Every structure is written in structure tokens, then in C-alpha cells.
């Protein structure tokens, strides 16, 4: 019985520490946007909505949110569709060297999307006339996200039984029909995971849009956030904190929605 009590106390303490650790940095985001005189310290605010009003006066703020949405939705759609097709084929048909190929792509994607390939990517976009276009940002980011998406989705596809597909084939269903009506519903949590992951990634990415877009009218919020400085070079904390909150809300809402609807989980297939 004592062992049980100790275990309960230990668990509660551990969870309290975890909660404290993860909530502490977030406090500022909850208090500063509503503070009339925000500083770096988290404090009880002198409550105001004025910061939101001055934020809306900034010409680029609203358009940057629209740009973020466009780039995130475009990339997520592209990544989910292409990754689902590729992961399904790679999961069902044995191609020699398949695993090695996947690992190499995964490696490349984690290295090349960083600072390493900035110069080639810029030159490539220039030659393909993709500079200053949303499409350029979408294609560049999708190329970087695809390998990991295929890698994770293939795990989900491997976990689903092939017996349904065999019977569907016996009844004359085409491959695309099988994919759409049998496989996709089975791996839906996996697809939701990939979509959320892709949107969150694009929403937060700074480097690629920063290099590829020159026109501030096309820049996403992550880039605009770094332009909110006074003419003297000091950060405008009222605008930064308020915009941070505004910019964070969509991804949070999306997460809550997807987790309610599909169960945001890392397992595929039919529940045991």
C-alpha cells in the first residue's frame, strides 16, 4: 500500500513539474498582448484591447495572415496528396533499395532545407521565375516536407491489413478506388497528423519565405513579425506580443479541431 501511495505522489509531483515547465514560457503570450505598457516581464496587465487596434493599423498585418494561410494550405494539400500516393505504393510494392532510398531522402530533407541550400534554392527559384510568388514558397517547402511525410505515412500504411484490398480487387475495384475508399479511411489519423504537421511547419517557417519573397505584400506572418520594430531599432513589444498571439491562434484552433475530429495520434489502422 505504501508503495502505491509513493507511486501516486511521485506521479503527481512529476506531472506538476512538467506542467510548470511547459506553461512558464507561455505566460507572457497570455498577459503581454492585453497590457497597456507591456514589458518583457510577465505581470498582471493593465488591461486593454488597444494593442489589437494599433496592430490592425499596420498595413501588412492582415495581408500577412492571408499569405500564411495560402502558403500553409497549399503546401499541406500538396504534401498530403503526393505523400499518400507515394507511401501507399512504397508500402505495397517491393522495390529494391526502397528503405535505403527513403532514409537518404529523409536525411537530405533535414539537411538541405536548412541554411545549407539557401544559395542554390534562391538561384533555382530565380531561374524558374518563382521569386516573389506563393507557388515558389509552396513548392520549396513541400519538397522539404515530403520525405518525412512519406516516411511517417508509410509506417501507417504498413500497419493496415491488405486483406480488404485483396477482396476489393477481386470485385474489380481499380487501384485509385481502393486507395480512396479503403486505404485512405484506414489511415485517416495519419493523414490528419501529416496535414497538421505540414501546416504548423509552413506557418512557422521563416527562412524560405524570407529569401524567396521580396514584396512585403506577399510575406507571411512569420516574416512580418520581425519587421515590428521602432525606427530606432527597439522591438515594439505591444505589437510583437499581440501579433504573436494572433499568429499562434490559427494553429492552436486547427490542432484542437483535428484532434477532436480524427484523434491526433501516431497509430494507423483498425483499432484492436
Amino acid at each position, binding site marked *: 500500500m505504501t508503495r502505491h501511495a509513493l507511486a501516486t505522489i511521485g506521479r503527481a509531483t512529476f506531472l506538476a513539474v*512538467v*506542467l510548470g*515547465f*511547459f*506553461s*512558464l*514560457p*507561455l*505566460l*507572457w503570450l497570455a498577459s503581454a498582448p492585453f497590457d497597456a505598457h507591456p*514589458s*518583457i*516581464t*510577465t505581470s498582471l496587465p493593465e488591461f486593454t484591447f488597444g494593442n489589437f487596434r494599433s496592430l490592425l493599423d499596420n498595413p501588412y498585418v492582415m495581408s500577412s495572415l492571408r499569405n500564411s494561410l495560402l502558403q500553409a494550405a497549399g503546401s499541406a494539400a*500538396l504534401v498530403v496528396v*503526393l*505523400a499518400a*500516393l507515394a507511401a501507399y*505504393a512504397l508500402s*505495397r*510494392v*517491393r*522495390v529494391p533499395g526502397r*528503405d535505403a532510398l527513403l*532514409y537518404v531522402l*529523409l*536525411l*537530405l*530533407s*533535414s*539537411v538541405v532545407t536548412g*541554411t*545549407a*541550400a*539557401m*544559395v*542554390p534554392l534562391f538561384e*533555382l527559384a530565380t531561374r524558374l521565375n518563382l521569386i516573389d510568388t506563393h507557388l515558389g514558397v509552396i*513548392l*520549396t517547402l*513541400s*519538397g522539404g516536407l*515530403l520525405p518525412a511525410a*512519406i516516411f511517417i505515412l508509410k509506417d501507417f500504411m504498413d500497419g493496415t491489413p*491488405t*486483406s480488404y*484490398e485483396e477482396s476489393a*480487387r477481386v470485385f474489380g475495384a481499380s*487501384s485509385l478506388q481502393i486507395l480512396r475508399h479503403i486505404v485512405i479511411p484506414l489511415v485517416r489519423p495519419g493523414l490528419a497528423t501529416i496535414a497538421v504537421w505540414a501546416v*504548423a511547419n509552413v506557418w512557422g*517557417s521563416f*527562412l524560405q519565405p524570407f529569401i524567396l519573397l521580396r514584396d512585403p505584400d506577399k510575406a507571411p*506572418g*512569420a516574416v512580418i513579425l*520581425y519587421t515590428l520594430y521602432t525606427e530606432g531599432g527597439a522591438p515594439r513589444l505591444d505589437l510583437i506580443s499581440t501579433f*504573436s498571439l494572433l*499568429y499562434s491562434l490559427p*494553429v492552436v484552433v486547427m*490542432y484542437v479541431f483535428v484532434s477532436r475530429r480524427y484523434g491526433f495520434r*501516431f497509430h494507423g489502422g483498425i483499432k484492436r
Partner: protein
Amino acid sequence: MSQADPSGLGRARAVGFVLPGLVLIGVFLIFPALWTIYLGLTDYRLTGLAAADPQVVGVDNYTTALGDERFRNSLWLTLQYVLGSAVVGQAVLGFAIAWVLRNRPGPVKRITEGLVLLAWILPSSVIAFLWIALLDRDDGTLNALLHTPGFAWLLDYPMPSIIVFNVWRGTAFSMMLYGAALENVPPSHLETARLAGASTFQQLRDVVFPRIKGHVLTNLLLISLWTFNDFTSFQLTAGGPEGRSEILPVYIYNVALSGGRLGFGAAISFLVLLINLVFAFVYLRLLRDRRKVVVP
């Protein structure tokens, strides 16, 4: 044939399914990577004479890098960063949270998972400002809480700061992956072990770990790679002070884009790629050994 291809996809259609993704990856990932390798063999610079007409200098960049104190220091810091924040920090904390919260539906689980996930899904530009606010020397929340005004965390302890930061940032992935993996462990096996008097450690070692080995390896591979190439810490310390938190991605940025030595930066990028390949190779071998055991 039907044994190897039970869903009847066929080679040709399979290729058709894979091709669109591969083309995109080829143009926007592999091609720039090859370009980087070429640039690494030149003295290409952002400005000046070498910008207009870069010369091929062979392996000069590589010999320079390997002899460079700053590069070796950066490599060492990167290893600390990956081991400390990913392999130990994220993986262990993520597993611990998943283990404590397993089979425990309710508000505590939802709130904990929600907070941990929040740290992961918020945009990195926002996160960087949050941590600057937390660790600030004069008005930081942490100093206010600990009554240590004027303590400069980011200046005095830059490496521990960004390691803790990255644990905070990335634990969610491990937590979710292990949470799902733990669902594959039959509760009855754990119950039997407990009734037989096995301690928590023994349960983990003998019942849980053998079943989630594959997940552990996949997780470690992914988070090591992501951490190795993570650029977010740049927004906290920019590699400073005096290069004491200059991990390799930041080093590349500082050398190639701030310093303008694009060719040299590309060479370092290629070295990073090679190191990551070694990482992946080791994991791949471990994973293959596991498969041999599972499927005799």
C-alpha cells in the same frame, strides 16, 4: 507475385504513384543538394571578385575546415546539443510523460498533452520571443520568479539554455510517438509482470522495451536529425557569446551568409550531410538487427 503484391497495384502503377512526389523532391531537394556539393569545391563568395567568377579550388575548403578551431568547437557543441536535448532530453522526458499518462483519460492528461503540444506547434518566431521574455537579464520572468535579478542566462549559460529550450520545444513528438507505441503493449502482460512482483524498471526493461524497440529507434533517428540541423536557437543566442553556442547550422549561417564565404559554407554543409549519414547508417543497422529477431 501476389504474395509480394497483395493489393494488386503492379509495378507500373506503383511507379506512377511515386513519381509526382519524387519529381518535386528531385527538383527542390536533391538538385540543390548536388549544387551545394559543387559549390563546396569552389571559392564562391557573396561579393567581390570570386562572386562574379568563382574558381574551383578542389578540397581546399575541407582541409581549411578540418584545421579550423572554430569548426571543431562547433562540431563538439552540436554533439552536446543533440545528445543533451534530443537523445536524453526529448526522448526520456517524452517517454516519461507518455508512460505516466498511459491509460489515464481525463482532464490532467488532456491539459498536460495540450501544453506539451502547444510548445511544439507554435510558430518558431513566436517561440523565440517567448524564451527571450522568459530568460531576459533585466526583466525576465525566470529571474523574477527565482529572485535573481540581473542573472544573464543566455550570456553565462548559453549551451544549457538552448538545450533546455530545445527540450521544451520538441518533447511533444517523442511523447506522442511513445504514447502510440505504448498502446501496442498488451495491458495483460504488464499486469502479469506486476503480479509477479516486477518493479517498474523491470517491467519497462522486460515487457515494454522489447515491444517498442522499433519506435524508439525511429524516434531517436528523427529527433537527432531534426536537432542536428535546427536553426531556431539562432533566434535566441545567434551562436554567441563568443561562439559558445555556435552549433553547426548557426556556424554555417555565420560563415556563409554573414561572412559571405558561400563556397566554404557549402563545404561545411556537405560535412554535416556526411555526419548525418553516419548517424542514419548506425540506426539503420540497429533497426535491421531488430527485424531479423522479429521475423525469423
